[in-house]
């Protein structure tokens, strides 16, 4: 079961010191403004290096409800979505040492965990429609000279590109994430000709690509 995306660890995972006694967090605390992206990444790093439960609480408060919503929107029933969201957050705790802020932002890393655990969940609870859902075997690839951009730059550019998309383009991209449908099926869902859907996706992805390659 390839439940969670495994980034190739850079060197050994951080050694885990025993958790500080007397530093017990039992309740979810949300303080002040939502954390920014750099802070979210730092929270994961602190979980890895110190098993920092305060950091986990903050990360949980921010991400668990979003992962929950994401999985709902991805088509999981309510109870399953919450169960898998909980699994995702536990995976974040366990696998924090595999998080590499140079490769992906916190949200992207957690997205890949949610994606993979959703697939595992469907596989375990597969009903009649056996062939509909996919497995994603992750490839462990050594980071090489191919890395075009720092993860933080890439993610900033992706977000900027999203803002420049038309509503129609954004819709087909979202459907690609939240539905199993191929473009031909998206076309019939939206009542559009296949060519229109394909060209919207192409334009949307092209805009994304132009921004990414422009900056590399």
């Amino acid at each position, binding site marked *: *079961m390839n439940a969670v995306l495994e980034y190739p660890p850079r060197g050994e995972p951080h050694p885990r010191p025993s958790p500080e006694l007397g530093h017990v967090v039992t309740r979810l605390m949300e303080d002040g403004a939502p954390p920014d992206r750099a802070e979210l990444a730092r929270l994961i790093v602190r979980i890895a290096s110190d098993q920092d439960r305060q950091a986990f609480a903050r990360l949980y408060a921010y991400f668990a409800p979003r992962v929950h919503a994401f999985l709902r929107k991805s088509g999981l029933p309510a109870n399953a979505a919450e169960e898998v969201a909980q699994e995702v957050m536990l995976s974040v705790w366990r*696998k924090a040492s595999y998080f590499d802020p140079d490769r992906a932002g916190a949200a992207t890393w957690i997205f890949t965990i949610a994606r993979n655990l959703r697939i595992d969940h469907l596989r375990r609870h597969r009903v009649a429609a056996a062939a509909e859902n*996919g497995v*994603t*075997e992750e*490839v462990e690839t050594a980071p090489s000279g191919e890395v075009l951009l720092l993860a933080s730059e890439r993610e900033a550019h992706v977000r900027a590109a999203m803002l420049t998309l038309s509503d129609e383009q954004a819709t087909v991209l979202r459907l690609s994430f939240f539905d199993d449908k191929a473009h031909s099926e998206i076309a019939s869902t939206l009542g559009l000709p296949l060519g229109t859907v394909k060209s919207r996706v192409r334009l949307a992805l092209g805009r994304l690509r132009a921004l990414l390659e422009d900056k590399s």
Partner: protein
Amino acid sequence: MKIRHHATDETLLRYAAGRLPAGAALVVATHLEGCPHCRARVAAFEALGGALLEEMEPAPMAPDAFAAALRMIDEEEERNAPASLDSARSVRVQATLPGGIPLPAALRHCDMGPWRWIGLGVRASALRLPDDPSARLTLLRVGPGRKLPEHGHVGTEFTQVLVGSFSDEFGRYLPGDLAEMDHDIEHQPVVDPDGECICLAAFDGSMRLNGFIGRLMQPFVRL
């Protein structure tokens, strides 16, 4: 290795979103092993997934969910079994391709079926994923100068060259290349004369295999 034939953006997007059928996802994963270009695309689409995650309207967890998470963490630490990352993964004998070539890393958890003749100069071996019996993908081994089975199919066909090469109307496909063919594209791949060609093939799962190759493959993949 210079890759000349890549996965389409649609396919890479569906892969990054976790929305490709199991067999097709494995073919793409095999391609990504050798293709930095497509890996960079996947990374961008995963970042898109991260952006979508962040823009979600939060759906509250149950009030005691965080406390429950901490209890599970405590229990794991007491059992002193933190993060058993891949313990369930059994060690299996590594299957090899003819000539002793190891299977691509993306396929190392697959069980490889026996090679069987499915037509003139064509043999096939069904690959199965132990933890996902629904995955459908096939290794094809085609002799030099032989045509890959001519077929009409619904959905998209993904063919990754592992050994040797073939050519069709769109060019020559060498190891590392991925041929991604929509059903409306007619093409007739022929294996190049200098040696046999081994490739990995899967279809988009939403289709019914009613083409020639589909009929040929039915006995293997029990569709």
